[in-house]
């Protein structure tokens, strides 16, 4: 295979493409891109061993800004594409990237079932509590009283989605929260997530400077979770339901075995065909 550069470790920069992001200046997603490339470098993976799968939205543009294999599909279905790829090609490292609308609204059903199915994927959700690409509508994680969108002038009036608690209840095997403003810390979480078997969910606070300028204050609110990750879903549940939404770190390590890989062939086409003979 590739013999020329096998010994040469790739730097974070090597995982970046030459394609200029569409993101606004100050967008949190720049920090996530940086963290992803740092994590891939730290994991020592070659470009061709990695595939990054996404749906639709600002954050779903991320695969094109890396130099790995990528798939930028339709809105909400990234986890399904990724599961198919990983089951067909178990040796690949498959990351899934997207936003809160893509993952929790239009793709909500797949989020739940991806956690249940526990295929060995790492799911990075860049949550900015707004639909940025369609210019600022409420998302599933937007506070009910937020009146910043013409589409919901009185606020949504409905409770925000609680991604980490849902992930835990649905069976995710690794749950962490990160912050785009700390790419080095986030990179470490991503490395842990990739190494942990099964569905690893990293919820990333990633501010939208254009439609949610007040999220610039997140930097001051974010802090280390200050707890040891637990393997007890009961303790994790309490922690996830009661923290202020800004505690960063690994919050839960599950020990469920990941979705079983297909078994080796045990018969032949001839034997299958013989079953039809009269």
């Amino acid at each position, binding site marked *: 295979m590739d013999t020329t550069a096998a010994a040469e470790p790739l730097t974070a920069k090597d995982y970046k493409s030459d394609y200029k992001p569409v993101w606004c200046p100050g967008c949190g997603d720049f920090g996530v891109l940086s963290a992803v490339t740092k994590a891939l470098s730290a994991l020592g993976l070659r470009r*061709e061993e990695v595939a990054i799968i996404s749906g639709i939205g600002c954050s779903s543009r991320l695969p094109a800004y890396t130099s790995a294999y990528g798939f930028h599909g339709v809105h909400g279905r990234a986890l399904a594409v990724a599961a198919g790829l990983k089951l*067909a090609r178990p040796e690949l490292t498959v990351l899934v990237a997207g936003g809160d609308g893509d993952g929790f609204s239009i793709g909500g059903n797949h989020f739940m079932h991806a956690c249940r199915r526990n295929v060995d994927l790492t799911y990075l959700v860049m949550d900015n509590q707004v639909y940025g690409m369609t210019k600022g509508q409420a998302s599933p994680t937007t506070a009910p009283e937020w009146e910043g969108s013409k589409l919901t002038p009185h606020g949504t009036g409905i409770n925000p989605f609680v991604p980490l608690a849902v992930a835990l209840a649905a069976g995710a095997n690794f749950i962490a929260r990160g912050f785009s403003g700390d790419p080095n810390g986030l990179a470490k979480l991503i490395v842990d997530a990739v190494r942990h078997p099964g569905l690893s969910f990293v919820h990333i606070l990633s501010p939208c400077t254009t439609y949610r300028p007040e999220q610039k204050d997140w930097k001051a609110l974010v802090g280390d979770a200050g707890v040891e990750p637990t393997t007890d879903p009961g303790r994790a549940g309490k922690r996830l339901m009661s923290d202020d939404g800004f505690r960063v770190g690994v919050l839960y390590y599950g020990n469920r075995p990941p979705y079983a890989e297909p078994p080796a062939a045990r018969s032949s*086409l001839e034997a299958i065909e013989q079953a039809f003979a009269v």
Partner: protein
Amino acid sequence: MADQDPLPETVSVALTGSGGAGVVTAGQMLLESAAGAGYYGLMGRSSGPQIRGGESAAFLRLSPQPVANFGDVFDIMIAFDWMNVDRFAAEIPLDGHSLVLCDPDAGAVPEVIAKSGARLAEVPLKATTKDIPGGRINMVGLGTVAALIGVPEEILNETLTRILGRKGEGAVTAGLAAARAGLALAGSLEAPCRLAAAGGGGDAERWNVSGNEGIGLGAIRGGVRFVAAYPITPATDALEWLAPNLENVGGHLVQAEDELASVNMIIGASFGGVPSLTATSGPGLALMMESVGLAVAAEVPIVVVDVMRGGPSTGIPTKSEQSDLNVAVYGCHGDAPHVVTAANSVVDCLFTGQWSVHLAESLQCPVIVLSDQSLGQSRAVVDRPADLAFVGQRETAAAPAAEYRRYAVTASGVSPASVPGTPGGEFVADGLEHNPRGTPSSMAEDHLMQLEKRQRKVTGFDYGDHWAAIDGSGELAVITWGSSTGPAREACRRAAQRGLATRLVSIRLLAPAQGEKFAAAMAGVKRALVVEQTHSQQFYRYLRAHYDLPDDLQVCHHPGPLPIRPGEITERLINWS
């Protein structure tokens, strides 16, 4: 009607009863017994929506010749009980020549059966069953019908022993006793017709296969090793066949959370280089269409099988119709060239399934395969299908050049695809319009170039002779597709017996349209009859949109669940007005 039948040695039987009566089991045993005795046959089924206790019917047509439709009128009907028989009486045409076997213990013969004019004969099925320890009414009825039509007793017994043997010795003993008792009941009855002596297949192998199994086998033969799907009637049994058999060859089936996940999972697996397929029915196909467009844009080969049922919406899940043609051909948003194929018989599900995998992989685009309930859930006894050369062969970029361009514009339109794991071939597959490298682009020039490339690879491909099945060279053409082909072919044979030469054109490749080939196939045609099982004439409108047709043209159509019968087509051909 019988005088028109070119297959007078053919016998058709309908078995009916409530859901638990074992109608389908008895039908399958009769089919297998007939196959064992050297006959060809076809068995279809009809059922209500209930899981247990609803109505159910098995339709069989057996013959020394291959059978591809159920004819016009049933020779024999046997009712294990009369539960809800009115719900499918219209699917069991009877006339004065038919014999209806009814059990006096099942109560009065329903009006809908009595008024058909069929001869009624009482057989004490229930009373006979009662005297046999562990006996079941369906085995008694099976014995009666087998004796009546001339299936040899020793072959019936062999079949029962083999099938019931899976349930243990007690089941075999009871089954054989019940069948023997049923056989004795046939003694006093006069059959409307009996099977002519079977020519016997000699040493040639015959298969007993359903359309849904055929599609599954075609997929595996073609190289499919990944399937993701969501249960839906009447496609589920294709998936249930595929799940263990994919594992047999090292493949894998995932039950997805919905059809949106199904189609996207197979897109992901195929992006990884593994030929992939999903199977669904109309409602599922409608859900999948957005992502079929994604597979067009990202140039990912996938096969989507639609086993059609009555629509729209939930429609009639358990019964057949050809009304998904429009969504299959036109259901994508944007200009989205893709391939639509259609199986024209139970056994052709295998050919069309395998061919479709080959097309998807060769063209790097989605192929929608149309089958329907009447093909998918019917079993046919046929000569062993030929081994086909079609295997999915994707043009890949094994050692990509320094500036690899996934969507390079080529003469054929097909660009070598790099699969993940290949060093130097890294690219991002995208539903966004893109330039040859795969980088998103909203420029007019890139859009036009990629649209033309994607169009060219599909329209420029040589589909050979497989685009249609063509019989005869008469000036009167019958143009049809899918499950309407069987009755249309028989109608053409009947017309020939009356001295009317016809030409059958059954289209297997619905998209892209094959203008030149169609024109050549229709050369010299003066009149044409279009045959389809829809209410709104979807196939006729499709033909009008894509092909030159003779002025003197008529359409023979009606919606499901009633099948198109050969007699109604023959009538239109003979009495052209």
